[in-house]
């Protein structure tokens, strides 16, 4: 069933700063298969958004990809020139951003946005045709087609987010990177949005990388979950096994610290400490200073990220060599 759309091999991203180099993404390897939703979770600053931006090759300066491969549909994106990469963006890989309120040009109508996106990649499409496509698209997203000539300020947050999805879907991208798509929506709109995303995903067999710090969103939508900490992948597994039986102590801590109506006060645990300073990360496993299961070896040697059970990867010495 699984045809890989995107494969990351040992991808690393550095941010050189005045006080030292921050490794935002450290040696990340993973595969995203066609038609799956991969949830990428972690705390603020763990590198999940950086990873998303690196795949698009839209890192903010001074961020730089310093190693590894990003293999998308069989070609290494790092080797592509800028123009080829630009053609890929929007047509084959699209992105949905966090804040729909600011993601649309306030001076362009909805139709202009869609038409522009279509014509950027298919200059042969006439404006009228593109407009028709745009109207169909937003209609399918539950916005009445006659609102296509509205300006962004005339739309609600949820509608703008749907327009953003529409833009991402306009050209049937093979991969959609959704960077915290629901963070700025309230829970009701968020729920509607997630339902809709799920429907669209099934309908078009979309491949989505869902970047979020919200475990609930991941549980709702993801097929597989990757957990990131301090720039590294800690655990990667199907969503149900991961929630039922997290392998990595960090995942366990993360799940235990999510408030839940079934939990008694005693069961809600907090994870002590805070994420490490990435300019001067701890030696060995980066999680060891906060890890309840830390062993001597964790302080010096970094555990490899490997398949510890079928379909389950983890970077932890608890699971042997």
């Amino acid at each position, binding site marked *: 069933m699984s045809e890989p759309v995107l494969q990351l091999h040992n991808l690393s991203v550095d941010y050189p700063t005045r006080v030292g180099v921050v490794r935002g993404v450290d040696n990340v390897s993973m595969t995203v298969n066609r038609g799956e939703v991969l949830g990428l979770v972690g705390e603020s600053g763990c590198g999940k958004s950086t990873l998303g931006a690196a795949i698009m090759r839209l890192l903010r300066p001074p961020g730089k990809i310093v190693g590894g491969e990003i293999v998308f549909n069989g070609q290494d994106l790092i080797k592509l020139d800028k123009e080829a990469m630009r053609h890929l*963006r929007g*047509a084959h890989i*699209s992105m949905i951003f966090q804040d729909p309120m600011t993601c649309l040009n306030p001076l362009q109508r909805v139709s202009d946005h869609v038409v522009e996106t279509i014509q*950027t990649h298919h200059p042969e499409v006439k404006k009228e045709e593109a407009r028709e496509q745009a109207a169909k698209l937003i209609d399918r997203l539950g916005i009445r087609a006659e609102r296509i000539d509205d300006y962004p300020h005339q739309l609600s947050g949820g509608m703008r987010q749907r327009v953003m999805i529409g833009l991402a879907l306009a050209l049937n991208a093979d991969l959609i990177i959704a960077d915290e798509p629901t963070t700025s929506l309230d829970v009701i709109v968020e729920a509607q949005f997630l339902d809709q995303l799920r429907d669209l995903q099934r309908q078009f067999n979309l491949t989505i990388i869902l970047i979020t710090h919200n475990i609930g969103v991941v549980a709702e939508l993801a097929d597989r979950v990757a957990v990131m900490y301090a720039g590294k992948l800690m655990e990667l597994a199907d969503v149900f096994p991961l929630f039922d039986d997290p392998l990595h102590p960090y995942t366990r801590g993360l799940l235990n610290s999510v408030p839940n109506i079934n939990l008694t006060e005693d069961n809600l645990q907090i994870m002590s400490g805070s994420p490490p300073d990435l300019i001067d990360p701890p030696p060995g496993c980066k999680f060891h200073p906060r890890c309840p299961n830390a062993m001597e070896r964790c302080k010096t040697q970094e555990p490899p990220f490997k398949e510890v059970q079928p379909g389950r990867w983890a970077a932890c010495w608890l699971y042997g060599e």
Partner: protein
Amino acid sequence: MAQVAEIQPGLLARFLRGRKWYGTEWYMTVTGGFIVVFIVVLTALTFLTPNLAPYDPEIRTGDPFTSPSAEHIFGTDQLGRDIFSRIIYGAQIVLQVALLSATLSFIVGVPLGLVSGFLGGKLDRLLSLIMDSIYAFPGLILAIALAALLGAGVLNMSIAIATVYVPTFFRLVRGQVLSIKEEMYVEAARSLGARGRTILWRYIFPNVIPSIVVVFSLNIADAIITEAGLAFVGLGVDPSKPDWGYDIYRGRSELVGGRWWPVTFPGLAIALVALGFSMFGEGLSEILNPRLTEV
């Protein structure tokens, strides 16, 4: 003339009253419709000049130094020319120069600012250095030096003044581009594969326009004063042509003899028109940036 000035504001004020524009009630802004009217009247003046001016401004039409009277409402100058007519004709030159120079600095400053801010790097540093050097120079002195170099005439004066104001546009646009470049919608456009030039012309430029329009108007006000300064030191147009700055220069020695009108009226004209344009700019900025509006 007097009739026009009285009737127009009333009509316009009535027209504007209660009308809302971007949530701002125009008549509420101090800078309101009167200023717009003033500029409209002035522009009309420059086009209708031959019909409005009672006399030929370049020939003797009365005794020298006639004080303001019914025949010469602003009096006459030392050659017996009608000051009122000279002011009306002088408006033409001052407005030509002001508009031309503001347009020239717009044409040069805005594209440079856009490219500089957008591309950044060495080009940006070089352009910023040049622009800051011009900016650091006292404006009038630079204009005088350039005008002296280029010689008299409407076009040369405009070029001299335009050079002084290019950095104003450049710095404004560059700064705006730097901040708009970081907006999410620009990043979103990039993530959809938009070309650099599409981003610059369709995402960044339109969002800079409101500020440019405001500065354009303020620049006209500045240019009017600079033009008067140039004319005052004799770098304006042909001396026989009516020019407010030059008329002040010639009238200033008469002040001692109690003959106040040759200098007062051109001076008032300069002050009012410059004030008009700068208030117009302020008003525009209140309308275009509604967040700054007092409600």
